[in-house]
């Protein structure tokens, strides 16, 4: 699966509060640190495996641990409409 932002959804830097928010139709939410790491790697070309590889390298963490977290996170973000599969 190659996640992407659906039309009308984007990651936005909220300058007034110095934080990142996911902007979506008539709503917004503040991703936690883990979700933000995943969302920043979403570019419509990286698939989930590539995102897992990138995060395993960045955090020097075991790939299987990262993989479980990332798959659950992407699933949740898809259900919330923040990502499209």
């Amino acid at each position, binding site marked *: 699966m190659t996640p992407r932002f659906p039309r009308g959804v984007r990651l936005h830097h909220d300058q007034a509060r110095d934080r990142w928010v996911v*902007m979506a139709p008539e709503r917004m939410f503040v991703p936690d640190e883990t979700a933000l790491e995943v969302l920043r790697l979403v570019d419509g070309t990286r698939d989930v495996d590539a995102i897992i590889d990138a995060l395993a390298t960045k955090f020097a963490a075991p790939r299987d641990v990262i993989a479980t977290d990332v798959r659950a996170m992407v699933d949740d973000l898809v259900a919330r409409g923040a990502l499209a599969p």
Partner: protein
Amino acid sequence: MNPPLALLAELTHRCPLRCPYCSNPVELTRASGELTTEEWARVFREAAALGCLQVHLSGGEPTVRRDIVEITRAAHAAGLYTNLITAGVLLDAALMARLVEAGLDHVQLSVQDTDPAGAERIGGMKGAPARKEQAARLVTQAGLPLTLNAVVHRQNLHNLPLLIETALRWGAGRLEVAHVQYYGWALMNRDALLPTREQLDEATRIVDAARVAHRGRLMIDYVVPDYHAARPKSCMGGWGNRFLGVSPAGRVLPCHAAESITGLDFPNVRDTSLRAAWEDSDAFNRFRGTGWMPEPCRGCDRKEKDWGGCRCQAFALTGDATATDPACALSPDHGMLAAAVAEATSPDFRYRGFD
């Protein structure tokens, strides 16, 4: 004090529809009193600087303004996420293309009923249903996300399953099922609109089931009617806490219905900055936080959850804007709501309009 998150820009009170539950004030502003394009552009820049992230371009019908494209462009240029809240009946392919080019992010389209005859009667406009279906097509063909908004009440709730089907068929990613909130025009039409407890429970059951069935495909937002509630809604997430509205004539409001409360002097963007209105005006500070609350709100452990409920409803029903919202079972006036439900049997509407 938190900065506001969202701006409701009520660009006009003019509208081809005449819905009897319209959220506009009973005294409508005429075109000659409306803010100009440049005044709106300044409002958007000030709102973004203050911390607003999204703007809802609303009305009335925002597309009756000939400068709706320039207004959209100005909101986008200010860095705001732009939502167009429209009845859709004036939208054509050329306007849609220009709005997309101006940076529009999302369209919310109202639906009065799925039954065309019912929709024409409730909205008070012949031919509206077909134009709305066409508008939905234009939005999705343009690649923009679409929300359908249905205000629901006793006279259209029986079509809720069809409404959900319509949202899926028209390609909406979101559906708002919003029970009428009773102030202004809707309060005048309360006897014709209030659902029964059985209707409400059935609607809630249908929405819950649809949320599960269409998870990941259709998001459903559900606004419940507080006449059947034991606790009030957290109105606007607290007065002057998250939300900022600007009326067609430039008045800065903590809630789109706030002008229904008499005795509050709302600042105007023609005289003051949005920041001064938000931070320093009496109208915004009057019910901000919890310091203004009398009992039973003052000693309540939910006071920072529901903020005493809705000030407009408290004022409309009790004449006292500081009273606990009668939607709360702890309010001494709570019995008024059950009495209103029992009395609500009229089929007739009083349509909105200019005097």
